[in-house]
């Protein structure tokens, strides 16, 4: 009975490790998808409505899911707390806090977008958003492939790894 219980614990631990890694892969993919959609929406708003940035951030914080939504909420909160610091500072700090799973090049892309937001004319901002969106789309596709490929590998590894440990211990 004790052996059975120990084996169950080992298997649960292994599965948790494996599926945790799978979750992170899919989580990153979801964040990139949400960020990509957010940049596309910002681009449209700046083209047709010239909406003030705080209102755009508020809307994105409300409508985007997961870490991306929290990122926009946090950017707005920081901007309102310290307007003199500017959008870029709030954007950068919120990114560090809310999007820790992004890869360095994905972070760099977002930082470049943040450098223009709210500080330039609509056309310059749109160009930066378009560039950012195109790069994020490439990162997103890459992340999707990775999630599918590595997701299966991590799941299989956790299952076989757990089984192997159990067999070794028994």
């Amino acid at each position, binding site marked *: 009975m004790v052996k059975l219980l120990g084996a169950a614990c080992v298997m649960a631990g292994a599965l948790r490790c494996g599926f945790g890694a799978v979750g992170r892969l899919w989580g990153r993919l979801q964040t990139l998808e949400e960020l990509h959609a957010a940049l596309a929406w910002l681009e449209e708003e*700046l083209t047709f409505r*010239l*909406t*003030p*940035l*705080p209102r755009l951030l508020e809307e994105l914080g409300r409508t985007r899911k997961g870490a991306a939504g929290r990122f926009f909420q946090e950017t707005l909160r920081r*901007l309102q707390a310290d*307007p*003199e610091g*500017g*959008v870029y500072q709030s954007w950068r700090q919120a990114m560090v806090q809310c999007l820790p799973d992004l890869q360095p090049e994905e972070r760099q892309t977002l930082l470049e977008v943040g450098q223009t937001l*709210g*500080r*330039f*004319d*609509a056309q310059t*901002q749109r160009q930066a958003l378009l560039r950012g969106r195109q790069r994020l789309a490439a990162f997103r596709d890459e992340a999707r492939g990775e999630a599918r490929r590595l997701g299966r590998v991590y799941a299989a590894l956790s299952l076989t790894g757990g089984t192997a440990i159990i067999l070794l211990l028994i």
Partner: protein
Amino acid sequence: METARAAERLDQAARLLPGPLRQRVAALPLERRAEVEELRLRRGRPLSFLTSEGEIFLPDTAVTGRDLDTVLELASASSVHTVLAQVKNGFVAVPGGHRLGLCGTGVVEGGALTNLRELSSLSLRIAREFRGLCWEVLPKLWGARGLESTLILSPPGGGKTTLLRDLIRAISAGEGCPPRRVGVADERGELAAVANGEPALDIGPRSDVMSACPKAVGMMTLLRGMNPQVLAVDEITQPEDVEAMLQAAGCGVALLATAHGGSLADLDRRPLYRRLMAQGIFGRVVLIENAADGRRYSVTDGEGRPW
């Protein structure tokens, strides 16, 4: 009390300045702060302010390009794109009714200024409220027909808007005259500074404001919908404004308006105003002159005869 209020208006406008510059303005004595009409920021030069005595520089306050960008970012609530479309006006109206004049490298499309990059200087004109400023002229604006349509004239920065705002307030409140419903076409938000539907500046209890729409449209909307007895409009600059004023005058509404100019002769040299004056709409003209001891107001009839 008035001094404290005037200083408060400056402090409100100075919130748009970066911290170190804001602190220098805040450190000025109360009486001095109450006198400030404008703050001027020029890249690489010290911050300065304008009073009736002239332009005074604050030493050791070199303004940087980043400072100018920060002011614009704060004035636009981190949304520079929303105000750059206004640069063709030469300035941007900011919350509180203040006016931010912009100067830099222009971007011209189709012969018209469409954008600005590399700001070189900014002027932040403080919206001022001086209750009772109009008392000197108000009694002279009433004739046999009641309130005469009045044109306020002065060179730029002469205090036309401040006088107009106080006239609106006094007429709307019935201060020293019978109260009247005043329709205010406030295209640039300088007269009433409406925020969330409520005027931030005192324009009296019987005033209705149409803001953020072209003056001509605002005037016609007020005429149709709000049944004003008096229509007030700041800075007539477009033929459409003149057309709307002619129509309003034909409806028996008294007009209060301002225009740039040092004298009636100045107006006569500009076709836009020549037409307006030729119609004899304005029964009174108020001329504002800057003198060493302050501003002087003189009232004439529409032909330039002292009243």
